[in-house]
């Protein structure tokens, strides 16, 4: 009876908790699980058998906010009217819930943008967090557009998982622009320091599955208004 109760309690716990329990004695487990109870309804239900009611969430390093730029429909709409925050999330599970419910980049109308930015940073050059930074960007022509949804997802995973970043959080956000000429994916950074940016750019190039001949360019936001501006870094 005592062993059955322990087994039932273990089945309710997340996997990494189970590892801890296995290394404990029966008495220790009993002490630790005194507050827990197994009702008749929940008996036999595990994480594997009922994933919907599984409340364990994997926290992300930051809160992320998804923004959407609505294409202009009327002449009186300004940039601030078109740029709208959609939702925010702090866990992996919330990210997947959002990702599975929103339209993919290929399903968006022309002149749309998705922006995913850290914390409360607005996806604008003028934002204090962006003003001294820049962006790595690459434009995918129409011929390579069929894979844009997968590439955008890879970019999102690399950003929220912080796998593209070094110890210091250099990344502010990631953007996809839907245009007639193709799709552009940009990685916004908080600074223009060459050493960390080169490492970030090399990883970003791998995330986007670019070939050696493809040129990933970095532009500082300070030169954003200059149409003839040259990239400060090219990989």
């Amino acid at each position, binding site marked *: 009876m005592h062993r059955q109760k322990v087994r039932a309690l273990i089945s309710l716990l997340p996997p990494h908790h189970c590892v801890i329990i296995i290394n404990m004695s029966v008495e220790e487990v009993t002490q630790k699980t005194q507050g827990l109870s197994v009702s008749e309804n929940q008996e036999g239900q595990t994480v594997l058998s009922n*994933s*919907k009611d599984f409340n364990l969430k*994997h*926290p*992300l*390093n930051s809160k992320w906010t998804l923004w*959407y730029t*609505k*294409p202009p*429909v009327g002449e009186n709409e300004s940039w601030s009217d078109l740029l709208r925050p*959609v*939702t925010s*999330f702090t866990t*992996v*599970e*919330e*990210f*997947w*819930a*959002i990702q*599975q*419910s*929103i*339209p993919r980049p290929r*399903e*968006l*109308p*022309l002149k*749309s943008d998705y922006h995913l930015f850290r914390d409360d940073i607005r996806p604008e050059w003028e934002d204090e967090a962006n003003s001294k930074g820049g962006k790595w960007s690459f434009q995918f022509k129409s011929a390579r557009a069929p894979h844009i949804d997968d590439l955008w997802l*890879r970019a999102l*995973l*690399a950003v*929220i*998982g*912080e*796998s593209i970043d070094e*110890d210091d959080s250099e990344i502010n956000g990631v953007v996809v622009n839907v245009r007639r000429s193709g799709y552009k994916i940009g990685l916004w950074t908080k600074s223009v320091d060459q050493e960390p940016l080169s490492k970030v750019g090399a990883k970003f190039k791998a995330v986007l599955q670019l070939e050696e001949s493809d040129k990933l360019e970095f532009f500082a936001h300070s030169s954003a208004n200059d149409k003839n501006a040259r990239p400060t870094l090219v990989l």
Partner: protein
Amino acid sequence: MAKYTEEELLQLKPTEDVSANFDVDGFKTMIAEVAEHHEIADLFHQKARRRSSHHHAVRPKIKAHKPKITKDEEGWCTSTRKASVVAVGDDGEPSPAFVAQETLRVKPNNKNIASSRPADTRDIVTDKPTMTFNAFAALESDEEDQV
């Protein structure tokens, strides 16, 4: 610092759809409205566009059949045009072609004919022959003295 590789995040992807924490339907509706607006705008621009020439690639064939010219022994040339349809009589011989007599009344286009009216009315005075008798001029004339 919480870090996840791409593989770890993909493993955490739920197999079933999970409800998001915002108004997904409202968001999708807004995007659908924009897409619909773009379609209507594109259609309007296509219809409102001035018709362009379609003869860039394929030009219309304007080719008249050249009459066949035969030259006899004496050097006379005769042009013959092959009729597309030849009427055949009861005896099998081709019947003489009926030529309709038509009288065409051609109205001249006055716009292309030069007007007889002078452009300047003062020309009328200068062109008009003057046969007036001036008595004073006649008195001073030397004709009689010479006679």
